[in-house]
């Protein structure tokens, strides 16, 4: 671990700035949760309706 710390370059100067500008973690957390919920709603809509048959019939020949 210590060895790796030495190898690592210092963080670019602009990184700290972006951390300061970011909203508090709790707010960010609920944003992310809401985004995931929207995404899961979409997946519910577009996911193959008969998953079992779809997975079973997805057969490929080996390639390259």
């Amino acid at each position, binding site marked *: 671990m210590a060895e*790796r710390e030495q*190898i*690592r*370059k210092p*963080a*670019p100067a602009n990184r700290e700035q972006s951390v300061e500008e970011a909203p508090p973690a709790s707010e960010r957390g609920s944003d992310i949760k809401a*985004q*995931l919920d929207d*995404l*899961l709603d*979409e*997946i519910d809509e*577009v*996911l*193959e309706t008969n*998953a*079992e048959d*779809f*997975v079973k*019939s*997805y*057969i*490929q*020949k*080996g*390639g*390259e």
Partner: protein
Amino acid sequence: MAVPKTLGLETEYGIVHRGAPEPNPISASSLLINAYLIATHQAPEPGRAAVGWDFTDETPGNDARGGAPAGSLAPEIETHLVNAVLTNGARYYVDHAHPELSTPECADARSVVVYDRAAEMIAARSMEAARMLLPPGEEIVVYKNNSDGKGNSYGCHENYLVSRAVPFSRIVTHATAHFVTRQIFCGAGKMGSETSGMRLDEAGYQISQRADFIEEEVGLETTLKRPIVNTRDEPHADAAKYRRLHVIVGDANMSQVATFLKVGTTALVMALTEDDAVPRELRFATPVAALRQVSRDLSLREPLELVDGSTITALGAQWELLAAARAYVETRGADAVGGKVAHQVLDRWEAVLGGLERDPMELAAQIDWVAKLRLLDGFRERHGLDFQDARLRALDIQYHDLRPAKSLAARAGLETLVDEAEAELAMTEPPPDTRAFFRGRCLQRFAAEVVAANWDSIVFDVGEGSLRRVSMAEPTRGTVAHVGTMFDECGSAIDLLRRLGAAGA
């Protein structure tokens, strides 16, 4: 000295012909590609032969080790199937039972991302065009993944131009160190295991699509006993100066950041190898086992044993390669590895390793295996599913669906590096900064006189009796800077050949 890294991807896509009474992946692939050629007016005029692929220079059986070991099987070339050269310099063809698209030669990792995205758009356009030709109720669907989950795999190969002067054994050493560990940011993620005797954790999820199919350390094969380092020695360029490292170990990526890093970091590692600038050799005690172990270690913390008895984690190995690459670019510059793009690769590489170290879930918008895991976890929790539920496997496959209306990757909030308009243009326009420019322009302007083309030559028939072959043995020549004006000034293929003859090209 490292040679400029000319780069490219060859992607084999999964294909399904839905609603067909007797689906056949070979005829479906042919139909898909022909439909695209017709829809985009790249199909030949009636009564004319198509611009075919010229196989005279193909030697996939040549082994970089010189004399292949007994029992090695050289891949066969199929010449009777659809095989088209596109105006963007790409090759679009049927390979075994898959549609495959090889990008044109690119001069840096960003350009690879542009042409890889263009290839996805070409696949989407092909599916649309095929639907118009098929009976109602039938559809051809294309997936950009590498496994059917049932033990069958198809590849996304990468190509890197390297100097012939480098001993191949040195390439094997450093390429292996990188390929075993780079999965942590370029793995596409997969439900389940396709090797016997390997345990997965309860979730049954692993980082790489491809690790289960890698069985050897070094070898010539690509369809069985697949190796970590492939020895195909077919440079498609001046063989006295160049090798082409043909990489078969990687996953196809939906994330542009992952493609950018996969190609960008590997180009850097190859430059370091050429200039012998890797501070120490990271030799794994058992590279194939290590590759599979990394794929199954979502914690990214498991120690991997080196031949000297010490251990290193995949993250540790990547930090070490990054530090070597930074030092290399600082001392020798980035001319051989894409100029300013190499600096972007280094910065992104560092940021992604930092994210993986803190919490991989931070990278759900950048790294495929993390993005897919987030969807799987969220979906499973929402519906209270068992890990074995077929819907999770369906989600895994559909992540890679290239239909915009169905693709889950397209919905996963992945960061993009190139804008859609740029990629759309790249469906028909060649890159300006490699020999693909010459190939693409010839196809755009003089397709009627081009009889055949391949990576390093174009054959013309200008009605003068014998055919004329133009050689392109130098991948960095034939760019817009070299021949752009010539194309502007030539009204016909005869003019062009005359000018090229006069210029001694």
